[in-house]
């Protein structure tokens, strides 16, 4: 019973030949079990998931079988499949932006799922046409069930939201609606394909918690797919690790995390920034991820494996049964035996022996693997490179001509009276949920938005927006954007894109060519990439190019707006290492914007937490992230997936309020566990706690509480 996938092979036909997406995956999901499927992008996880519900088009299943409760899905006819999809198998996709139909209300979309479940065989074509005009769930019973489902997935005030359209929901709420649609079928197996990758850490925690609750209440099996082993480990009973379309290791979560056997599992675990000391280079997975070429005769991981032997190349690795129901596809005893920490050390020490000549091909590029362990925290005293004094940035909510002429539009204050300093050589982590104004603040610093009040000072000089800045001031700040795919002009080669800032700064041709070459070596990419177009590079490589472009004019400040949020965990590790090396070598100051506290903890010297455009807490990273003096920071920390059991109900409840109409008193009070009457009336002032400042009436008691509960991160490892 349950789901079992055996020896699944899926292939895509393309012009350039077949792409081998899945090459013999086998695993099972027992009823009521939560299983995590983990691997880097391109390892065949999503194709496997889609094959289970038979949505593998345009791929084709060439070999193997998928069985679900005695039905062979690989040979089932359309009618059987429809019934199974309608009642037993449900799927939740990654991007909640595109998976809901924008022209129907969410209630109607859930009601449709209910109707299909009640009668999966009926396809009332004419009825649908007629029903199209009037609301489709006038019957009270259905509306009641829809409300129940909305409440079930944790949407506050479902009665008020049921008739809203998808665009009126935030990303997290939309993902909950997707969950409700999936649950409407009362499925016995839910397949969730990266359900939280596009979401905030706090929202992610809430969704994962909801999944766990649903599993408990309904006995529903869950197949949770993710590239982030940290996310999966919170929730799952068992973990299946996939590489190049093959399962390389599987086993119960706790054993797999404490003593991973396959080198790939170890590498994936090592990449997590939460597991390393802050500032230390992260262990990376060498080599490039699988590209869909036919699998080699021997072990699939051989090219990237530090323990590979000659024999690994020739013979396929057998599947070994370990104790505790674990299986691993690796026949090299010392590869299995080496534990995580020892592996890191051994790779570090070999690199040191070979000196700086040791290079690893990382992400297609050449990276010098020299974890010198330099302290990026070394701080040069002196004037701050960048300072913000009472900066406020507001937008008009309507851009219509009439509104502009009459001046009738509301103003949305995205950044509200923020004062901050960035010192030379330091990394300031700016954290907060989506929509808290951290990106707007970064854009104001870069000059892409002009502040409505307050001053931005660069090296002591007040600066305006981009158009008002001098060439020298423009050169001072480099910006790296979140999505590497759109930050380079697709119609120009990478080399041309890199050269452009130099052209604008008036450099001569020969000097430009030298600098471009220099930049390529700075970010560890081969010069030959200069002739390539952005679409020919991977995400990690593109982000390296974007970093190189930001560095072209030798800035002293880099504004990094979620530079790794769009990347795989393994690629993120290489990019974070690169940023660390660059900072040590060039003495750069970073303004590092991120919603991921694990990443911020790894890179930042100081941390500033933002909420509804306001700063709520500022202080040294070590203090703020171990003894938060503001309940908001504490809640953000709770939400970080760190391999522990799920955060309890102390996680951040509800959604941030609308920035057009911020609450009176402390902006955070509607969601704050400590809030009392005083917080609803009086806006708190800055309180100093240790080296940090917090804007909370109860800053001291909050910090003390978190000290006493030993919420100390560093102990975790």
């Amino acid at each position, binding site marked *: 019973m349950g789901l079992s996938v055996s020896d699944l092979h899926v292939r895509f036909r393309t012009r350039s030949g077949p792409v081998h997406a899945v090459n013999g995956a086998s695993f099972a999901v027992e009823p009521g079990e939560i299983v995590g499927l983990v691997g880097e992008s391109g390892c065949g996880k999503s194709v496997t998931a889609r094959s289970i519900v038979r949505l593998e088009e345009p791929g084709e299943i060439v070999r193997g079988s998928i069985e679900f409760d005695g039905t062979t899905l690989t040979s089932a006819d359309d009618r059987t499949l429809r019934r199974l999809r309608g009642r037993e198998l449900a799927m939740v996709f990654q991007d909640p932006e595109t998976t809901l139909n924008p022209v129907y209300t969410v209630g109607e979309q859930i009601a449709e799922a209910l109707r299909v479940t009640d009668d999966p065989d009926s396809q009332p074509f004419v009825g649908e046409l007629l029903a199209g005009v009037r609301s489709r769930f006038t019957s009270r019973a259905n509306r009641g069930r829809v409300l129940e489902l909305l409440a079930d997935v944790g949407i506050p005030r479902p009665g008020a939201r049921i008739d809203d359209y998808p665009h009126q929901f935030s990303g997290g709420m939309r993902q909950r609606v997707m969950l409700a649609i999936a649950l409407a079928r009362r499925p016995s197996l839910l397949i969730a394909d990266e359900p939280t990758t596009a979401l905030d850490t706090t929202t992610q925690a809430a969704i994962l918690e909801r999944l766990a609750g649903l599993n408990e209440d309904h006995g529903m099996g869950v197949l949770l797919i993710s590239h982030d082993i940290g996310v999966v480990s919170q929730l799952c009973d068992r973990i299946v690790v996939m590489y190049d379309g093959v399962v390389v290791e599987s086993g119960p979560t706790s054993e797999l995390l404490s003593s991973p056997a396959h080198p790939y599992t170890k590498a994936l675990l090592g990449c997590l920034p939460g597991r390393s000391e802050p500032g230390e280079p992260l262990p990376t997975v060498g080599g490039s991820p699988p590209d869909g070429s036919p699998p080699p005769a021997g072990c699939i991981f051989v090219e990237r494996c530090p323990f590979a032997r000659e024999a690994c190349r020739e013979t396929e690795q057998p599947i070994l049964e370990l104790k505790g129901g674990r299986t691993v596809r690796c026949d090299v005893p010392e590869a299995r035996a080496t534990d995580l920490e020892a592996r890191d050390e051994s790779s570090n020490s070999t690199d040191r022996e070979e000196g700086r000549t040791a290079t690893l091909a990382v992400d297609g590029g050449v990276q010098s693997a020299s974890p010198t362990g330099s302290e990026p925290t070394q701080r040069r005293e002196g004037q701050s490179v960048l300072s913000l004094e009472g900066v406020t940035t507001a937008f008009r909510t309507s851009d219509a001509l009439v509104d502009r002429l009459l001046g009738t539009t509301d103003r949305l204050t995205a950044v509200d009276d923020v004062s901050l300093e960035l010192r030379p050589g330091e990394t300031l982590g700016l954290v907060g949920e989506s929509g808290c104004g951290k990106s707007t603040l970064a854009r104001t610093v870069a000059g892409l938005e002009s502040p409505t009040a307050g001053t931005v000072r660069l090296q002591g000089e007040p600066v305006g927006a981009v158009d008002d800045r001098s060439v020298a001031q423009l050169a001072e700040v480099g910006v790296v954007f979140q999505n590497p795919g759109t930050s380079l*002009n697709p119609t120009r080669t990478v080399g041309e894109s890199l050269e452009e800032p130099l052209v604008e*700064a008036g450099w001569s041709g020969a000097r430009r060519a030298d600098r471009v070459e220099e930049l390529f070596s700075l970010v560890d990419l081969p010069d030959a990439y200069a002739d390539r177009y952005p679409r*020919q590079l991977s995400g990690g490589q593109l982000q390296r190019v974007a970093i190189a472009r930001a560095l072209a004019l030798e800035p002293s400040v880099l504004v990094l707006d979620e530079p790794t949020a769009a990347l795989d965990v393994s690629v993120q590790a290489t990019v974070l290492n690169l940023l660390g090396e660059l900072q040590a070598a060039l003495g750069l100051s970073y303004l590092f914007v991120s919603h991921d506290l694990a990443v911020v903890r790894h890179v930042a010297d100081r941390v500033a937490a933002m909420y509804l455009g306001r700063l709520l807490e500022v202080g040294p990273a070590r203090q703020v992230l171990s003894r938060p003096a503001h309940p908001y920071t504490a809640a953000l920390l709770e939400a970080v997936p760190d391999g522990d059991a799920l955060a309890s109900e102390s996680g951040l409840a509800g959604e941030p309020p609308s920035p057009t109409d911020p609450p009176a008193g402390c902006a955070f009070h509607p969601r704050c566990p400590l809030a009392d009457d005083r917080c609803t009336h009086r806006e708190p002032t800055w309180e100093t706690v240790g080296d940090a400042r917090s804007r909370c009436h109860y800053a001291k008691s909050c910090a003390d509480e978190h000290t006493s509960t030993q919420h100390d991160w560093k102990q975790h490892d």
Partner: protein
Amino acid sequence: MSERHARPSNADGPSSTVRAWVREHTSSTLARVGWTNSSVRFGGGLVCLLAIIAVVGPVLTPYDPTAQALDARLQGPSLAHPLGTDALGRDVATRLVYGARVSLALAVVATALRVVVGTTIGLLAGYLGGLVDAALMRLVDIQLAFPGLVLALVIAGVLGPSLRNVLIALSVVGWASYARVVRGNVLAVKDRPFVEAARLYGTPGRRIARRHLLPSVLNPVVVLATMNLGTIVLTAAGLSFLGLGAQPPTPEWGTMIAGGRDYLRSAPWLVTAPGVAIMLTVIGFNVLGDGLRDVLDPDHLEERDRGRS
């Protein structure tokens, strides 16, 4: 792309190297314009054929398109006159060939004017935004509010019937769709991080428009222009048919149809030949435009790229 392929060695003489170079470059150029797409092949072939006929045709034919030969009036198709002669004894095939020159030249010039005007306005409106955008787009709305053919009729009527005035009329009406398409695409592209990055390293506005915005919005313009060439040929012929365009004895397809109308029953080839020519031209441009739309689709581009690398 081809530069990165291994070059053939020079050992077997320069001629083979040159030949290999030519082969490599023609094949990659052909692939770039999408010669692999069957619609592009068919439409492009038809259009190329027309262009060749328009260019070399007059050299091949022994007749003068306007010289009258009243002794050879209204002859049916024969070896001497493959498409017969008209009421004044002029060779229809010859007039058709000269007419292709007129029609194609008119279509190309009018389209070029539309593209330049429309793209500039769209680019300005999209990039500058605000009041400029509002003003320019109202201008576009006004233009679109007039039915194109009727406006062209009015203009041609006011300025008097001539080919030059048809050209003016056709250029005044069609640019609005380009402005809209370009503006929409500019709006989609101008907030992309790569444009913001360009602003951050101090690129002046005109260079942002030229280097970053224009190349990204050009593909839909090319498709639209190709389709437009066909409609302009049709509209110009229509105006001439109504007597507002080319005046007799100028060999123009619309004028030829108008002249042959009276002999529809006795000499059907007089109307059929230019009619079929117009039809083939319009089909050719439309199919080519359709194919180009598929080929220039960004997803498609990527697939082709993977296929070649």
